[in-house]
């Protein structure tokens, strides 16, 4: 069952056309890796899904509901956009943890704020917040950071920060978890711990879209690979197909460059 | 939407500017006398300046100008409202009606008489040259090329600018006459040109400036009270001055404060 469908997505920044006619779909429990050179539009695509950019054309459908249609202003109302963002989680390249909060609070803050909107919040405030605390601790345990709950972001390594970011995104139980080059800002020694966590999520059949330069990782973890080039999906298929037997010339060129480097 | 907001902003600006309308009719026609009598008080601008307006050891606000003003206000049937002002902005204060007159040992100068309505002279003054005791001084020629000081915008400054010899001295303007005194005492200026009345009060035995002496009298001058240009109060106060001269009040005050009355 397709949990995500992207149709005819286009995006321009001024005169520069960054996305041209993007079409793909994603099934529940599937992991897609998006690869391609800088400027191919990978990050813009991810940002469009999370409503951080507004596409000029196209539709985005989640769980058979049209959450975005460039032709229909009703789908673009600011008040609704906030709720729609919750379908997705986003892990940024440079983590974007909140520096003034502890690791635990970073993970639980958004949930605590959303809890206020619950109908039974006032009566059960203490219980709700308590539950959120416990859930947060558990998630951090899952990513291997139960001993860092009271630390501040500047006190932990980049890899640890990114793992906190993953826990923070997971907390809100998004339908689709997006990663924007999650290890590109990390030292090589630290990428391993983050990739391990993502691997674990893939094993649990978390629905994910991962933009990455880690080719081996992409091949190992994803169910499908999309190669983007100059705003278009140049090629897509299973990891073995795209990495082992690329059909398009551009794909071959790109992969050769990466093998050499 | 944006156009109508810009239009609104333009209209609002116009409206704000029109708030600068006349308060009541054309105040030039209205009599200044009626104005202060209507307010039941006359706001008198002064600076702390012995012996004209100052606070004595007992904490009483007094002085020649203070007492004279109180007497005049009694005749005008208004309350005297003494307001301490900044000498630099006295003309602006007067024009803006935050004071109704400048009554503080104001030297009558042609430019001032042209810009404000000044009463006839009531006290005589001179600009004097003061130096540190022991300085060589014959006449103003002795100061050519030396550093001399006076208060900015004062009659002393004007005297320096008009004297052929002092023109050739190195003149530095000071904010206050007392700062000028300080410079002479400190030796950073050879001489200062100040009001006689001030010099009398502040230099010599018993003051901070024991070693400062008066060596020359220049530019004799006279004091008057200044009102807004075109004010009818000046003429009214002149009449009252005549009365106070006739009944000896002025003479008594002059003696009390060691001043010379104008002829």
């Amino acid at each position, binding site marked *: 069952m397709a949990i995500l469908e992207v149709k005819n997505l286009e995006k321009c920044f001024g005169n520069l056309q960054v996305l041209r006619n993007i079409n793909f779909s994603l099934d529940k429990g599937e992991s897609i890796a998006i690869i391609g050179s800088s400027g191919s539009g990978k990050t813009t695509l991810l940002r469009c899904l999370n409503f951080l950019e507004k596409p000029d054309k196209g539709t985005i459908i989640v769980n058979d509901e049209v959450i975005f249609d460039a032709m229909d202003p009703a789908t673009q109302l600011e008040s609704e956009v906030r709720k729609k963002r919750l379908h997705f989680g986003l892990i940024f390249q440079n983590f974007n943890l909140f520096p003034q909060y502890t690791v635990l609070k970073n993970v639980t803050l*958004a949930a605590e704020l959303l809890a206020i909107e619950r109908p039974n919040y006032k009566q059960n405030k203490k219980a709700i917040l308590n539950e959120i605390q416990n859930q947060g601790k558990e998630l951090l345990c899952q990513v291997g950071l139960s001993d860092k709950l009271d630390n501040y972001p500047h006190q932990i390594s980049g890899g640890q920060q990114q793992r906190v970011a993953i826990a923070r995104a997971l907390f809100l139980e998004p339908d689709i978890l997006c990663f924007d080059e999650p290890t590109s800002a990390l030292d090589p020694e630290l990428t391993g711990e983050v990739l391990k966590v993502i691997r674990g999520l893939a094993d649990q059949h978390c629905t994910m879209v991962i933009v990455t330069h880690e080719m081996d990782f992409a091949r190992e973890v994803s169910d499908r690979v999309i190669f983007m080039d100059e705003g278009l999906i140049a090629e897509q298929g299973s990891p073995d197909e795209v990495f082992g037997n690329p059909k398009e010339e551009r794909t071959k060129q790109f992969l050769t460059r990466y093998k050499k480097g | 939407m944006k156009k109508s907001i810009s239009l609104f*902003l333009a209209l609002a600006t116009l409206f704000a500017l029109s708030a600068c309308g006349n308060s009541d009719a054309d105040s030039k026609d209205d009599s200044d006398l009626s104005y202060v009598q209507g307010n039941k008080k006359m706001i008198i601008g002064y600076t702390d300046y012995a012996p004209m307006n100052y*606070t004595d050891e007992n904490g009483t606000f007094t002085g020649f100008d203070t007492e004279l003003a109180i007497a005049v206000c009694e005749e005008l049937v208004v309350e005297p409202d003494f307001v301490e002002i900044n000498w630099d*902005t006295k003309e*602006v204060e007067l024009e803006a009606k935050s004071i109704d007159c400048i009554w503080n040992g104001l030297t009558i100068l042609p430019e001032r008489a042209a810009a404000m309505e000044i009463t006839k002279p009531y006290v005589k003054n001179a600009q004097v040259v003061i130096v540190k005791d022991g300085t060589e001084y014959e006449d103003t020629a002795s100061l050519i090329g030396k550093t001399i000081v006076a208060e900015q915008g004062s009659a002393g400054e004007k005297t320096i600018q008009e004297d052929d010899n002092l023109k050739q001295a190195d003149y530095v303007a000071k904010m206050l006459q*007392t700062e000028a005194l300080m410079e002479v005492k400190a030796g950073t200026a050879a001489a200062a040109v100040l009001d006689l009345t001030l010099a009398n009060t502040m230099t010599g035995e018993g*003051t901070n400036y024991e070693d400062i002496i008066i060596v020359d009298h220049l530019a004799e001058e006279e004091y008057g009270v200044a009102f807004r240009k075109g004010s009818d109060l000046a003429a009214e106060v002149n009449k009252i001055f005549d009365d106070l001269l006739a009944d000896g009040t002025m003479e008594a005050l002059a003696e009390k404060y060691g001043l010379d009355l104008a002829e």
Partner: protein
Amino acid sequence: MNQFYVIVSRLSESFLLNLELFALTLIFSLPFGLVIAFGSMSRFGPLRKVVRTIVWIVRGTPLMLQLMIIFFGPGLLNMSFSWPGGSSGRFIAATVAFVINYACYFSEIFRGGIESVPRGQYEAGQVLGMTKTQIFFKVTLLQVIKRIIPPTGNEVITLVKDTSLARIIANKEIIMMAGEYSSKGLIWPLFATGLYFLIFVGVLTILFDWIEKKLRYFHV
């Protein structure tokens, strides 16, 4: 000796005027400065341009001149509005001039602080479903505060000394009071005023250092 105590007590009393002006200016100009900051960052073009022009004018002319314009303006322009009489009118006018002036200076400090928070912080809040208000108060605000403490401290210290400018419209603050003595030939009170400012600024310096220390638990 008696004179010494009299002078010190009169100086201290007049310094209260400086302190009063200082406190009132801060109380009103800080929130007002935040409003102006948002105006100068507005996405609505005309508003942004008007606000930035006003800030340019207020920061581009001497405070001393602004004091005179605000106090003397109504009288000189024959406006129907006039300041209350006596020393209270002059003090109110001074407060108004100071609040406008410092609000503009603070607004630029606030704007700089807000704009220097990385966009990623804002976006992280967005993808986690936070409202704009929540993002401002829960994410951005403390980061802005930490960034603006040093320049704000600077501005506050400048304000302490600027308060003596109120004497240009004859508010009898400490330096004008000391001037009364120097006009009688007594000079030391004028230089003694420096001590009052020095001590007060010292207290403020300690306060701002303490605030900076309190915020050292995280790095921006």
